[in-house]
């Protein structure tokens, strides 16, 4: 059960049950819809960007614990960041999930998702919200993990 405990840490279960910033964002400057056709996970990411900085971010959706927690933590982590910082964070996070890099300080709470590494079929669940975030930034309306 140790890998499972590692995957479903308290923080993840908590974000799954009580997702943060789980709402539609009025006056969003960017938004996109993400979909994993394999398992049916769906997520909508809303952004308010001003002067190259994320002044507000939120999401809605219906997905597994990993994708919900990842989206929730993402919105917490990205509040107030510059777009450049956001991109760096995503790159670091992605490297962590595919086992290219170890956890480090700058990842903050995202580290709790490191357990996903032991479950290759679930990596896409964790990255779906981030791909959707990027699609929103680039004014694409949809992202999929296909």
């Amino acid at each position, binding site marked *: *059960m140790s*890998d*499972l405990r590692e*995957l*479903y840490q308290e923080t993840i*279960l908590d974000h799954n049950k009580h997702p943060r910033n789980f709402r539609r964002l009025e006056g969003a400057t960017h938004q996109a819809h993400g979909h994993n*056709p*394999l*398992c*049916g*996970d*769906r997520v909508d990411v809303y952004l308010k960007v001003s002067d190259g900085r994320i002044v507000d971010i939120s999401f809605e959706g*219906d*997905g*597994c*614990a*990993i994708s*919900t927690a990842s989206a929730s933590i993402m919105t917490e982590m990205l509040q107030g960041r510059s777009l450049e910082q956001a991109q760096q964070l995503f790159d670091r996070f992605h490297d962590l999930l595919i086992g290219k890099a170890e956890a480090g300080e700058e990842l903050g709470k995202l580290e709790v998702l490191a357990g996903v590494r032991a*479950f290759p*079929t*679930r990596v896409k*669940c964790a990255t779906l919200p981030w791909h959707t975030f990027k699609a929103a930034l680039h004014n694409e309306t949809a992202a999929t993990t296909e």
Partner: protein
Amino acid sequence: MSSMEIMNALTAGSYDVERLRADFPILQREVNGRPLVYFDNAASAQKPRSVIEAVQQCYAHEYSNIHRGVHFLSGQLTARYEAVRERVARFLNAPSAKEIVFTRGTTESINLVAHSFVRPRLKAGDEILITGMEQHSNIVPWQLLCDETGATLRVVPVQDSGEIDLEDVRRLLNERTRFVSVVHVSNALGTINPVRQIIAEAHARGVPVLLDGAQAVPHLRVDVQELGADFYAFSGHKLYGPSGIGVLYGKMEYLQQMRPYQGGGDMIRSVSFERTEYAEPPQRFEAGTPNIAGVIGLGAAIDYVESVGLERIAAHEHDLLLYATAGMMEVPGLRIIGTARDKAGVISFVMEQAHPHDIGTILDQDGIAIRAGQHCAQPLMQRFGVPATARVSFALYNTRDEVDVLLQSLHKVVRLFG
């Protein structure tokens, strides 16, 4: 199946599941340090040694191309290949082996009928009737036809129980209906549809019917004549046979009217650049070198299933269905989707606490393979208002002990997510 029938089938000789399990090499292996519990049979079934050996034997000792050689090996393998066609015909109780077309699987069988039979008869305003519980392979080919011709796809609604109402079928059949295509047993719900009645209703209006039998042939005796089916499609890999091989049964009077599906070798009588005469069915629909070893493996799979006995398999799986359903109803927060009275060994479910994907991962840690997702049936998921379901599906080699492992693991999900 009534409980009386189950009792009769089970007592008509004991069902020695342990002996059958020994026929399936993969069941010896472990997954994540636990004995494999394979409950993803509706996606694809495991293979008995006799199937694996038949394919191996074909390549190691008997292989050559078929239908084209004067030499010994070609003649021998052609005979064996054609003998499997006879075997399939007996298996479905088709009047003639000439009505058995080998395809890549259910998907290709349905596409073949859509392209070669239905398309030439379809014009704008015509209708094709399916149900709300079709797998994508029995939706998309018809949508493609409708797009091309301006015909309309009509859908028989699914009740909360996962059944369809024959009244709806009667209501939706009309003078514009050109074709009906219905799943015999639903892969996502387990519902066994009243296909004989549906066919009778359609025939009363002169409309031909295709049955998608992908989930039916491994679990119940299919007699195409008794059902009255005009076309019947199934896949080898769900019947303990190889993947990449499937069957289309079609009534000869229809097959003869049909144009080829693909052009190539083996499907013609004579070719010149001016004019090509097509071969008779079934060769007309088998262009090019087919999946020869797949056909040989399919023959072995049918022999295997028949040696166990479909009635006995059905009774065994029904016992597992009842046992698992009772146990799962005790799991807090678990809801079964699809509660048809007439049901095959498929249990789709959702849990309040956890998403199907999370359930799948937790069960996998205990060596239990299930399906989590949309089962290639997105419209059906929408119908039940769920993003996805977890699905357990049984085969002839599953046991009550395995169901107990499943139930324990489901309680673990509750503890972890509760």
